């Protein structure tokens, strides 16, 4: 937005208020821009109806409090993917942790989530070979 350097004169017409497209529920109302990689993300995702994270870097925003979708949190912190787990039916879920208040939340992966980022997340416990091999030896 350009900065207004000189005061508005009388003959200048005020900008008309447009509530057609940008109001809630209008044009791309629920789309968001990722806080991590600035990718413009549409909420229409293959495989899920509740997309809440960026498909590229898996980052999310802390907007919900207890119930998913309630938008009642005042934190607005950045949430980073912490771990991956599988539901009993085999679906992968991502656990997010808020970087400003350490709150945790989980969300199902979408069909267009970055496979390499998901794989890196799933392999993270095995990455430290020392810790993993100690666990295997202690079995």
């Amino acid at each position, binding site marked *: 937005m350009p900065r207004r350097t000189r005061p508005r004169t009388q003959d200048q017409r005020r900008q008309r208020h447009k509530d057609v497209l940008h109001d809630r529920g209008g044009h791309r109302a629920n789309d968001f821009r990722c806080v991590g990689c600035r990718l413009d993300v549409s909420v229409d995702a293959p495989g899920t109806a509740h997309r809440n994270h960026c498909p590229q870097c898996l980052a999310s925003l802390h907007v919900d409090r207890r119930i998913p979708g309630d938008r009642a949190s005042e934190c607005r912190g950045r949430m980073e993917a912490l771990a991956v*787990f599988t539901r009993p039916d085999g*679906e*992968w879920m991502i*656990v997010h942790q808020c970087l400003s208040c350490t709150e*945790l939340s989980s969300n199902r992966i979408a069909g267009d989530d970055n*496979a390499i980022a998901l794989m890196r997340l799933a392999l*993270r416990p095995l990455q430290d070979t020392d810790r*993993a091999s100690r*666990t295997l030896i202690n079995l």
Partner: protein
Amino acid sequence: MSTTSNTLKIHTFTCAWCGLTATKSTSDGALRNHCPSCLHSQHVADHVEGGPSECEGRMSPIAIAVLRTGDWMLIHRCVRCDELTSNPVCGDDNQLILMRMAVRPLAQPPFPLEALGSL
């Protein structure tokens, strides 16, 4: 006699899932909040608003998270109210269940892993 039973209650807890009586502190002095045998816990602290929780539901272990230091954290989810908590893994925790949780996603990948090999 009453002193003995009180002492037992203060220093131990009974697992809500497998019934094992476990000590509240580990041998290396760290505080324990989950059963070392089945890794289940109990929902006693409210992490959204802070303070004690009135849920008291059983919390089952669902995932392993890794800190930047390389330490493993155990993520629990309450089976009653679906709240998530994370706690550090203790030294005498059941390694079989820990390892099973760590490799569980790799057993059911949502995409073919062969494609990643050609990258």
